[in-house]
């Protein structure tokens, strides 16, 4: 009779062999069908799953909420950003800023914010890095 430890190790071997075989099978399916291989695995590829992905979470996203609140406020940095943004979407900017603000290293965070500002703002007469620095401080 096998003991518990041996039993665990047998289960693990099976699980590993199974998942590695699944990874290989998926690779073969990609080789045969290209990107369309996903239809072999997922029934509702074209359903609304992507549009509704965050439905149960988006309301609880407090960081995004506070960024949006700041961007529409009378703070001089927010006013400046809205002016430079022109008629582009404030919501899109907020979403991208949220991603950057989750970056843990300060220098990387600021340069990511600067890149986002460069992408979203039309014209700006002040240095983007300064603007990014002020924004990171205030958010």
């Amino acid at each position, binding site marked *: 009779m096998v003991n518990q430890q041996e039993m665990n190790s047998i289960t*693990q071997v099976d*699980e*590993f*062999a199974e*998942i*590695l075989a*699944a*990874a290989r099978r*998926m*690779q073969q399916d*990609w*080789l045969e069908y*290209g*990107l*369309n*291989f*996903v*239809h072999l*695995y*997922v*029934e*509702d*590829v*074209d*359903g609304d*799953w*992507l*549009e509704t*992905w*965050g439905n149960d*979470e*988006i309301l609880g996203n407090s960081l995004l909420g506070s960024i949006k609140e700041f961007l529409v406020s009378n703070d001089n940095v927010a006013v400046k950003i809205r002016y430079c943004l022109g008629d582009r979407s404030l919501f899109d900017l907020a*979403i991208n800023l949220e*991603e*950057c603000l*989750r*970056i*843990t*290293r300060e220098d*990387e*965070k600021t*340069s*990511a914010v600067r890149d986002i500002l460069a992408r979203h703002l039309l014209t700006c007469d002040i240095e983007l890095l300064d603007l990014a620095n002020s924004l990171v401080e205030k958010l």
Partner: protein
Amino acid sequence: MQAKEIKDKLKLLIEQASAIDPQLSKRLDEINRWIKYIRPGSLTAKPFVLAFLLEVITDSTIWLIIQSLPSEAARQAKFNQMTPNESYWYSYLFPKWINSTDAKFYIWKKKMMAGEFNQFDGDIIKSIAQDIERREGKIWQRYIADLSMATDLIVSNHQQKPLCIQVTSVSEEFHEQKYEKWQNALQLWEIDRGLFLSYNPGESDFINQLVNVALYNSDHLAEGKYLNFS
């Protein structure tokens, strides 16, 4: 399976990983959070995101099984059961991705959210991969490698030495800058050799030619070399 089940699987993995590899848990959690912001605009966006998720879920599961093993010898035994390409991916590149800095992680997140998936290149890459397998070489294709490591395929041949390759059309503008960017990306990820393959879609037989170059260099390209072939 319904697409919604993929989300459930992802959430389950986030939980499981938090005890075994918190850094992987963080990565998966980030993916879960930013997927909701992808614009479903282009026709290929949904299949692409699903292919990416299926792959991430499979790879993370493999990684967690290996990480839960009690000893280094036991982990090594699992890598030994893999082909050289798989072992290179699961023991070297995938953990690098898990532990990459936030800035590197951000690059591909940006690409994916912008919907930068090129179906035409995808078909060329698939044809190259099929040809390599027909000629008994081995390939490993990973969306993570494509999006973040400038690698369309990992190829190996007789010597069983995995080689990262990127395929691009010669007609593209800024070819030289693209090559430099590619080389920088590989060095950033500490991929010690690579092949940058350019093709001319107007030429007949170009797939066969690219496959010859890829198979030959997988066996012979020296370490530290980033070959630009056009």
